[in-house]
């Protein structure tokens, strides 16, 4: 009986020790999960260069802390303008503006932070044309996720 009691005590002690060790280990364990920023930006399909104003909207803007989404115009020249032409090779230059004036290359036209649904405004006006006609050009919008504090990502 004495031996049995001693055995029981030893077993209890072992179980308690194992439980304590287990609890100690689980206290050091952390659970981690990372989900990348998710966003969707709507860009204007066509910009009519007659002074009509366009804003940028974002149906989804679920960003990590410190992230933001910048929109710039990629193919604007140093004069803040874009070249357009007709099917008969007449040329036109359209100038682009935002709230603060004429746009410069690399200048941000809209900045979205977490939860924002609307940002920025641009419009274009004709600077010079070669007479009547339908002039076409294309704007390339750069849409970039920026991790603040890490500096802007450089295009490779």
């Amino acid at each position, binding site marked *: 009986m004495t031996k049995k009691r001693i055995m029981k005590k030893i077993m209890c002690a072992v179980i308690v020790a194992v439980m304590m060790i287990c609890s100690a280990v689980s206290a050091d364990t952390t659970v981690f999960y990372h989900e*990348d920023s998710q966003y969707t930006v709507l860009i*204007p399909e066509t910009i009519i260069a007659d002074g*009509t*104003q366009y804003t940028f909207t974002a149906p989804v803007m679920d960003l990590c802390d410190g992230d933001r989404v910048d929109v710039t115009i990629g193919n604007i020249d140093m004069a803040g303008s874009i070249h357009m032409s007709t099917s008969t090779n007449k040329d036109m230059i359209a100038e682009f503006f935002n709230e603060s004036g004429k746009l410069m290359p690399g200048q941000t036209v809209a900045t979205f932070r977490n939860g924002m649904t609307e940002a920025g405004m641009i419009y274009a006006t004709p600077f010079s044309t070669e007479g009547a006609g339908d002039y076409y050009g294309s704007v390339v*919008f750069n849409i970039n996720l920026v991790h603040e504090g890490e500096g802007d990502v450089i295009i*490779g």
Partner: protein
Amino acid sequence: MTLIKRLSKEEADFSTGKLKPNEEDYASAERKGAKGIKKSDIFFCIFFSCCVVALALALIFKPPVSPKLDESDGEKWQGKQAIEHQTEVKHIEIPGIDRMYFKAGETTQKVNIYNPESNDCTISYKLIMKGKVIWKSEKCYPGYGFYEIKLTHGLEVGTYNAHLLHVCERDGQQLNSANMNVEIIVE
């Protein structure tokens, strides 16, 4: 023959002085002057010429007329203004892609690139790294996308900066496009 003979006789009489000219014809000629012009006509011509010369001189030496700005309707013209008006604005939905995970040395890679169903245009994609196109697609219609792409060559382990160009088109007409910086992590 009789008429010819009579006319010839009158001519002969006139030259010999037998036939005298009508006196009334002489009086009328005196009134008209030596050349047969009335005096009133001459005065009219002189008066008309004077008027023309005076008008010409007045036009030549006309003093410049300075407009009185205070009296002008409207405002000082400073070039055309931008006039706002309602225009139907269509948009292109561009889903953000920040990062892609590729397998080292393999050309076939798994991605999630798609043209949202809400768009009304096709999108052609180009994945560009260090100025070289490492993957490009044909036109991708709304509601379609890519789960797998085939690169021009496999990549070594590392992190690369690239950009994904979205070229948007409808009915052969190019629309505005989008460009997105993408971090490619090759493992």
